[in-house]
């Protein structure tokens, strides 16, 4: 009887040994992938021509959105809205916040162009550009979208792009995603809520 138990236990133990490590590894792989998705440290170039890593944002809240400087409507509207958001925040709240404009038009948006453009809106904005492949990685990371559309317009091609605004916490993880229709007051309130919760 005891022998029978041992015989039964052997295949069970073998199965357990084979199954356990693989399940263990699999779980950890998913967690690692998730961590990479949330915390990948991309390198782009800022409006001063300096390399910029997303890890430089850590310790502050960051508002990130994607656009291009020749955008006639959505981008200047978002930046204008954010200038209202900044006016609603006090100095301390502003100091702990940075806005990041990631260009999806690296062909036209060179650092010098971004610098002049963003300075106009009088808020603390970092403009980022770089090789298309690098930009595309950041776009994918946040679930943003864009498509370059050729047209017969005298303005040349234009870019259809998503308009979501991502609020990152101090660890670089998305704390909230704002829709295009969300107003300045709602955005300012959420920034305060996240800052106070830390």
């Amino acid at each position: 009887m005891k022998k029978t138990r041992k015989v039964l236990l052997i295949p069970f133990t073998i199965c357990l040994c084979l199954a356990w490590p693989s399940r263990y590894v699999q779980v950890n792989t998913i967690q690692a992938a998730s961590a990479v998705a949330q915390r990948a440290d991309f390198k782009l170039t800022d409006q001063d021509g300096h390399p910029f890593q997303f890890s430089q944002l850590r310790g502050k809240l960051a508002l990130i959105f994607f656009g291009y400087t020749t955008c006639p409507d959505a981008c200047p509207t978002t930046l204008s809205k954010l200038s209202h958001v900044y006016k609603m925040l006090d100095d301390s709240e502003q100091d702990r916040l940075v806005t990041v404009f990631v260009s999806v038009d690296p062909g036209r948006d060179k650092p010098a162009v971004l610098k002049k453009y963003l300075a106009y809106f009088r808020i603390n904005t970092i403009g980022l550009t770089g090789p298309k492949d690098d930009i595309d990685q950041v776009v994918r990371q946040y679930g943003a979208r864009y498509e370059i559309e050729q047209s017969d317009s005298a303005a040349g091609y234009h870019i259809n792009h998503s308009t979501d605004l991502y609020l990152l916490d101090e660890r670089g993880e998305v704390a909230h995603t704002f829709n295009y229709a969300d107003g300045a007051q709602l955005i300012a309130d959420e920034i305060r809520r996240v800052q106070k919760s830390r």
Partner: protein
Amino acid sequence: MINPAYILLLPLLIGLNSFSPATCAGPDDSSSLHVSSSPANKTLSALPADDQQVVIKAAWVQEGLPSQKTTAAYMLIENHGPNEIELLSASTEIANVVELHKMQLEDGMMRMRRVDSIRIPAGGNVELKPGGYHLMVIGLKKEIKEGDAVPFILQFSGQITKTINVPVKRRDKVT
């Protein structure tokens, strides 16, 4: 008997009216004084009817952004006439080209497309506004700053032409 000198002066009077300071269309100005222009070949008796048919209100053009040669203009176009009309084209002396464009937010994605015309229903209106229609002002020939006024010529169906002076605004002061 009408003095022939008055007839000779008539086109001049019409022309002056088109470019008078009262043509300035401010965002807070709801009067219809700011729009007045008509085909020069219209008779005097036809002028009041055309002037009342199309009224432009709350027009503004975005201040030129640094490093950019493109901007956008917005306005409310009212059609007080009995028939639908179409805005067919626009032009301004301060840019190479003006096109009619439409923005559309679809599933969080802001899309833009050029349109051939903008219809204004009889007795109705169309608002050119952020997130919707705008006049795409392409190839700015000079800087336009808040406080300036930019002349635009709008060509509608029915051979209706409107000349308006559009004030330049910072977008964050309007939206």
